[in-house]
């Protein structure tokens, strides 16, 4: 595999992703989740940190060689709560990657455990040479 699928377009919205809005109609924050990508004998494995995202809030799609992950964060903080100290903000996660042609799109598998997404991007089996019959005229 020569091309790494690391061109990111974090804030591009596609029509398949719902317009991010909260209950009051204000736009929600969008974050670029940190990722790891490493190579295995079978292909590539991608990990993404998506704290606060459960499997229902996760949307993973491949379209035109672009893998897009969108995670909607759900929180159940009571409205009466007062923030005393804030290091992180609540928002959704969005990131997309360009897949190389060597990735077998049909065999991509994903699993979300404890807020970490693991995506397996297997390498497509090498195309076998195909003989073209030449008919004599």
């Amino acid at each position, binding site marked *: 595999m020569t091309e*790494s699928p*690391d061109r990111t377009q*974090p804030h591009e919205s596609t029509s398949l992703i719902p317009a991010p809005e909260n209950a009051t109609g204000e736009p929600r924050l969008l*974050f*670029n*989740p*940190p*990722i*790891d*990508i*490493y*190579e*295995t004998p079978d292909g*590539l*494995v991608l*990990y993404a*940190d*998506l*704290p*606060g*995202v*459960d499997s229902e809030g996760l949307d993973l799609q491949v379209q035109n060689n672009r893998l897009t992950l969108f995670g909607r964060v759900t929180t159940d*903080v*009571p409205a*009466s*709560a*007062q*923030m*005393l*100290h*804030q*290091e*992180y*903000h609540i928002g959704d996660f969005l990131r997309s990657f360009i897949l190389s042609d060597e990735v077998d799109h049909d065999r991509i598998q994903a699993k979300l*455990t*404890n*807020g*970490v997404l693991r995506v397996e991007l297997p390498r497509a089996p090498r195309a076998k040479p195909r003989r073209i019959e030449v008919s004599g005229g």
Partner: protein
Amino acid sequence: MPIFRWGQPWDPFLDLEREVDRLLQGVNLTLHGVRFSRRFPQVNLLELDDSYVLTAEIPGIDISQLDVTIASNCLTIKGTRLPPGEAGEDAFRRQERFHGPWQRKIQLPDRINEDGMRADYSAGVLRVTLLKAPASAARQIKVNEGP
């Protein structure tokens, strides 16, 4: 920007320097979205009527590796986040996620009832609920008259 200056009236670099300084100062304030280069884990502390709630973003932790303790109103959370097991160091194309041991200590603003502590971990978010200690009733102190 001063319009007229005594001394060196044609020193364009002074203004440029100031302008660049001003722009660089602004860069520190725009760290939004760059989440992986900061302290791990990130915590928020909320106050409710009868309790404090600490939330921490710690995705991908096995709860047996998670240690939550409280001593003299200081809450400590610590653990270790392991890198993906099967990956060799040179196999990484990109490594942005935090790996390794981590610890955070949070001083709580008020006395809390240490028995009413509760911690939940779901979807990579740790949530520690700490009940506030009931305010002790005011105690009258008798003043003795000196001899």
